[in-house]
């Protein structure tokens, strides 16, 4: 092989490899520029009143998003109460009880549900809850987000229960425990840190969802009592403020975005740390 060809190959090698490095740097750069900008801009517009007051009537400046923060918490609580038990128990069924064919069917359906666009889930929650009741409500928002939580809850549960070694199940059963007792007092507690962090990731994922809340929870300028009234949530508030013409509301949108991102990423990092620590101690 003559020198020219091998030189060309070496040059191609170096050029292409550095190009892939440049692409990585570019992607990371764009993403970090964006997030850095949000943190900087959002933290600047954040103040105490913003976190403790409700929105001012339109035309006046100031006010805050306290009702939206509380609203998001309420809707997410509802969603967790709907999505997590169903998802967890279905995951237990898949991991511990089910036969092959039925498990395949359920897994397929779960994947299907995971792929449904969030706006479509919003339509369904509208048709199932809002239309029969005749008005928008926190409950409808909770149902929409609850449905969205199911797929990840199922998968997390199944995955973490499967990672518990069979010897533990056999040990429990050898001591005379029934299957149910084995699952709920031996297997599930062994996987608890994974389960909890999986559910936290799940919650963080739906906490930022806006589309399914637009016509279920709708929004509210004031505090919302009970579960059956329209309710303000952080993501929808950000959206409404961002597309509003007033400059003051844009500042508030940045601050609200900062709060939302802080919560979502905070939950994410905590959950991932729990998982990492769990797998490290399991290896030991």
């Amino acid at each position, binding site marked *: 092989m003559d020198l020219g060809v091998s030189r060309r190959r070496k040059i191609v090698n170096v050029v292409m490899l550095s190009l892939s490095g440049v692409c990585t740097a*570019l992607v990371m750069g764009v*993403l970090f520029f964006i997030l850095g900008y949000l943190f900087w801009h959002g933290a600047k517009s954040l103040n105490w009143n913003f976190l403790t007051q409700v929105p001012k009537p339109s035309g006046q400046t100031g006010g805050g998003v306290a009702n939206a923060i509380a609203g998001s918490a309420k809707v997410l609580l509802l969603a967790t109460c709907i999505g997590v038990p169903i998802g967890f128990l279905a995951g237990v069924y898949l991991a511990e009880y089910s036969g092959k064919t039925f498990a395949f069917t359920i897994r397929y359906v779960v994947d299907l549900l995971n*792929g*449904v666009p*969030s*706006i479509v889930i919003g339509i369904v929650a509208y048709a199932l809850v809002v239309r029969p009741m005749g008005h928008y409500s926190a409950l409808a928002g909770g149902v929409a987000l609850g449905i969205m939580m199911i797929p990840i809850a199922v998968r997390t549960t199944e995955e973490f229960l499967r990672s518990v070694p069979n010897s533990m199940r056999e040990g429990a059963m050898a001591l005379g425990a029934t299957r*149910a007792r084995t699952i709920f007092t031996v297997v599930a507690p062994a996987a608890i840190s994974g389960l909890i962090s999986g559910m936290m990731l799940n919650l963080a994922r739906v906490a930022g969802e806006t589309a399914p809340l637009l016509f279920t929870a709708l929004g509210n300028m004031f505090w919302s009592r009970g579960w059956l009234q329209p309710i303000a949530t952080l*993501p929808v508030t950000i959206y409404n403020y961002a597309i509003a013409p007033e400059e003051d509301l844009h500042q508030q949108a940045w601050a609200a975005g900062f709060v939302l991102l802080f919560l979502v990423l905070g939950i994410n990092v905590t959950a991932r740390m729990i998982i990492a620590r769990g797998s490290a101690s399991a290896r030991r």
Partner: protein
Amino acid sequence: MATSFPVEPRVIVRSPRTFIERLRGGDQIALLTTLVCAVTIIVVVALIVVELWMNSQPAIKAFGWHFLTSSTWDPNAEKFGALPFIYGTCLTSALALLIAIPLGIAAAIFLAEMAPPQLSNLLTFLIELLAAVPSVIYGLLGIFVLVPLIRDCLVPVLVKFFGYLPIFQGDFYGVSFLSASLVLSVMVAPFIISVSREVLLAVPVEQREAALAVGATKWEATWQIVLPNASTGIIGSVFLALARALGETMAVTMVIGNTPKITASLFSPGYSIAAVIANEFAEASGRLYVSSLIFLGLVLFGLTIVINAVARILVLTTTQRSA
């Protein structure tokens, strides 16, 4: 002195327990409860399909297939056609992938093949965090950061060098197909990167070693040996990203301009299926109007289901083959 006594075999006779007794033991209750929850999921998905289908019946009856090919969207005259939205959804998704695929795969190659494991893991962790950023925040950044940036930096360059192309005609106001595509590409890139990296890492090390041993450069080993091995999985990751881009609502709604229009120019404002539902559903009055919006939801549902199914099959076949 060891003697053995014959032991009388004793048969333990247990009366068969009744159904209620077994229920009390807890075992059957647990089985039944978990089974009910598993079936609930199937019911939920069935409900989604049925609700979408039933509620879009008025529109299906009124317009039929013509709904998908008509480009009129006039709520006042009760004339509804989905073409501008389907066009917008497909155009922005395709363009977003066109940008995100090369960048994403190159970054995945860097992370899987070149970066030291510690750095690779750190960057992947950060990229996965970025995938968790809510879409409304991407929309916020799109409106206030990306759109001015595109207007001031990108568009003058494009017009100067490619201004003769039909896709870069007309005035640029900020909200447009181009802005929506760029925001989408930033959103889907993390997906392509993290899934492609997994798939690349699943290719056996021996393949690389064999290629290097016969004198291939690092790049040749990656490009000619590792990538073809991982191609099915990478295509799967692209389909996953496509499904996400098609269904993405908030970020697109905030920067696409919300004008039902079919033009070749990327500078022109447009509309997408998810965006029109998000914008008009809460205010829609009249049975046919609401029903048309739900029909659009059904179309979107069908699109994403098909693409997700293809993606799953592709990713499954590669990861299982390597396992």
